[in-house]
């Protein structure tokens, strides 16, 4: 009978992917978790120990400030990106197939841009010699061109640029499946277009919008280059400090502890969103 051989083959298919994911994804996480309790070794990378000192360092005012900066910036970027993405995606899904494809290709291209390139592009756009300063001076709004970066505003702008395409792509499936007759019906009953959008479309998308907020929040929380290119040192986020500790201060245990902490925050956000989603279903 070929049944047994088939069944073996059916299950055998999972062996290689499982092995790869376990060895190269789960095990690195476990090692990182272990290292977060190790102690720092100036000569080598780390020495095995059981030390809570790395976690105790979170209880400093400096670390608290870094945390507030990171969370605040990401939350602001998430609200702005999703706030713009909802009406934008709604309009796009009402366009023809060809136009939709063009906009999607454009969005995907922006989405896959390296953070380095986004940072470089925005710092050029906001610079004195090649940026909107020139434009504003030519229009007579500014007396002479000036630079707008580094600043908190520039950093926030960059983070929104990073998060916006993701927000659109999360909202796009739900909006394109939305029955176009629903807002139509509301309008027949006398609701203005804006009212039908806020009273019909937005409530139906509540779960999707929460999901998009979380995704952009978590994603921008991982931004590492933009705070360095567009922000000042006081705007450095947790991600920047993780890399800084790992590579330039060669303190892998402390970097690992911060990464574990960042992971817990992200997981808590993802868990919270799925909990909220289930309640409303």
């Amino acid at each position: 009978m070929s049944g047994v051989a088939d069944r073996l083959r059916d299950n055998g298919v999972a062996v290689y992917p499982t092995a790869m994911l376990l060895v190269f994804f789960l095990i690195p996480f476990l090692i990182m978790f272990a290292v977060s309790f190790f102690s720092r070794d100036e000569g080598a990378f780390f020495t095995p120990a059981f030390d809570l000192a790395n976690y105790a360092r979170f209880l400093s005012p400096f670390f608290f400030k870094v945390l507030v900066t990171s969370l605040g910036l990401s939350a602001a970027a998430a609200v702005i990106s999703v706030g713009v993405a909802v009406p934008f995606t709604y309009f796009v899904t009402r366009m023809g197939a060809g136009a939709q494809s063009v906009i999607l290709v454009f969005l995907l291209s922006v989405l896959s841009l390296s953070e380095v390139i986004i940072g470089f592009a925005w710092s050029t756009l906001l610079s004195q010699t090649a940026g909107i300063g020139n434009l504003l001076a030519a229009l007579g709004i500014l007396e002479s061109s000036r630079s707008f970066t580094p600043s908190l505003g520039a950093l926030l702008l960059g983070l929104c640029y990073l998060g916006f395409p993701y927000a659109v792509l999360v909202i796009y499936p739900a909006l394109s499946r939305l029955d176009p007759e629903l807002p139509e019906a509301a309008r027949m009953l006398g609701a203005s277009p804006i009212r039908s959008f806020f009273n019909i479309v937005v409530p139906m998308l509540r779960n999707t919008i929460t999901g998009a907020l979380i995704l952009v929040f978590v994603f921008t929380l991982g931004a590492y280059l933009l705070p360095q290119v567009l922000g000042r040192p006081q705007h450095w986020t947790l991600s920047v400090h993780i890399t800084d500790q790992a590579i330039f201060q060669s303190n892998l245990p402390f970097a690992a502890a911060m990464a574990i902490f960042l992971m817990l925050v992200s997981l808590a956000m993802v868990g919270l969103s799925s909990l909220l989603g289930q309640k409303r279903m």
Partner: protein
Amino acid sequence: MPALFRNLFILLVVLFLAAPLVVILGVSLNEPKRLLFPPEGFSLQWYAELFRANDWLGALRNSVVIALGASAIAVSIALPLALYVWRKQNRLAKALFGLGVAPFMLPPVISALGFMIFWITVGFYGQIGATMVSHGVFLVTLPLVTISLGLEGIDRQLIEASRCMGANSRMVFRTLIFPLVRPYVMSGFAFAFVLSLNEYIIAYMVAGFTAETLPIKIFNSLRYGYTPVMASVAVFFVMTAVLIYGSIARFGDLPRLLGAERSAG
């Protein structure tokens, strides 16, 4: 909503998204070795530089080699995994699927540090192969999602029918399933390729000083002053992405790949 308002809104957002790219394009055409916009003069020398200067060419080669290897690894993991999940749909399958999409749910800096510590522990820190495998595992999510979408579209009765006619599971896969999911495999490969090409933080932490990729090279140059070469590299990246996604849209069903139920085609 009034069409004028709608179009104006879309136009504004597209302008916001396009503005930095337009400036980069302008800057890359400068004649003097400075970043000026509007550009002074017109010259393509900074594009030639990308292929002539040894350091940029080396970074380009590293990037392409890593991206090709990584997307091949990602697809090699994703295809059997997607098949297994599609066939079984049991708890193990769901857990494996979750493991496959997990890297994308977390800020990448976390995975980057995990990979770095892992490669230090096993002794391959700083090797180009380590970057390749790390990218491959990190990007599994993309082909996994696209291939699963493709499999969902297959009519299970077709499989039943071919089984009844005596085909074993290998024949079913070769003659039926694979041809049907091939476009999804290819777009998964393409997504992974583009994202690996642009990925910075993992490449930097795993082998940033020995296997320099283009994004790392750009960032390193940012510290020592700006040159128009950086702009030409950025334009090259944007063009590659537009070309690849454009061909997916041209030859495949991009709206469906991105989750629209009714195909917009």
